[in-house]
């Protein structure tokens, strides 16, 4: 059973105040809530990534929750927003795949350029994080496949992606 609205709101208020224990409980509960929320709308293979994406959004935007208002409508709004964004990305990926099929040479050249540019970014983050991001976010492997290929545990792959993306986002303009 997932925590009720008053409990979640209290935990979130404590988390905004810096209570790490309350925050751990809140995020665990939010994870369960999101898994249930998305279950019928997202393919099982994409569920983990999307839930992780929303948890990161919750983390980054936690100041936007007003303690005088309910917590779950706030979380649901973010979950919907990220879900729509996710669908957009999936659609783009399918479009890209079709374009690749029609014009293999051009897209291969584009891909090489993109990889070069990403390589420049990757030299600024730890190798394990770069490897996890490259395999899962660029080559499209699942967390499990990346785990097998790298010898890192699935959890470690997730942590490395989280930490690596955080560093990369700060490096986007700086890395040359």
């Amino acid at each position, binding site marked *: 059973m997932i925590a009720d609205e008053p*409990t979640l709101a209290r935990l979130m208020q404590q988390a905004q105040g810096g209570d790490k224990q309350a925050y751990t*409980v809140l995020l665990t509960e939010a994870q369960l809530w999101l898994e249930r929320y998305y279950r019928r709308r997202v393919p099982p293979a994409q569920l983990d990534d999307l839930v992780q994406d929303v*948890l990161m959004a919750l983390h980054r935007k936690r100041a*936007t929750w007003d*303690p005088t208002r309910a917590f779950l409508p706030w979380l649901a709004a973010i979950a919907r*927003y990220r879900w729509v964004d996710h669908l957009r990305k999936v659609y783009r990926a399918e479009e890209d795949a079709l374009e690749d099929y029609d014009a293999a040479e051009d897209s291969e050249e584009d891909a090489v350029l993109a990889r070069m540019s990403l390589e420049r970014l990757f030299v600024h983050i730890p190798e394990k994080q770069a490897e996890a991001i490259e395999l899962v976010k660029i080559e499209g492997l699942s967390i499990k496949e990346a785990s097998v290929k790298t010898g890192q545990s699935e959890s470690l792959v997730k*942590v490395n992606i989280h930490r690596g993306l955080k560093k990369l986002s700060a490096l986007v303009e700086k890395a040359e």
Partner: protein
Amino acid sequence: MTMTRAPNPMIESMAEELVPVRPMTLRSGLLWVALAAAATIVLVELVEGLWHGILAGQASALFWIANGLLLVLGLAAATSAVMMSGPRVGNRHEAPKWALAAVAVLPFAALASAFDSGTMQSPLSDPYGLECALHGLAAGLLTAVALTLWLRRGAPVSLNAAGLHTGLAAGALGSVAYGLSCPLDGAMHLGTWHVLPVVAAGLIGRFAIPALVRW
């Protein structure tokens, strides 16, 4: 509460880096906008000089009505934009629509009164009209920047509406701020040239701001 599941390392990682945050409340957002609007009025006083006839009772009733409606629109749109920084399923943002409809009466009233009095003049014959509109638009800049920064800190999920309402708020509050320096208080002047910045800023906001506040 379900606590039997194995701990997620990503959650532990996020909890580790947790620092206290100050919640973005409606009150703090509105205070931020009020500061921008107050700074705009100070700038108008420094650059143009406020019209002292207002306090001396020389302003027409229409001056108060037009600026009052614009102020209501500005407050409604600014409140809506500030609220959008904190998303919530179930949020409704209807107030600016009704306030905009009320302001839209002004140009019609100007035209109707001109027809009735038989002294129909084109708004284009107003030598100060364009200047007022452009200055009113420019006076909305600080409010637009303040709201955009607020939205960028926030988590807006209705991006187009957030852009539109930011533009409407900036245009309306800018028009009011600049209007405090304008002694032209006729129906045609107020109903056209002081409403135009609202329309222009609304359109600019609708198309320029969503890309700036996307997250």
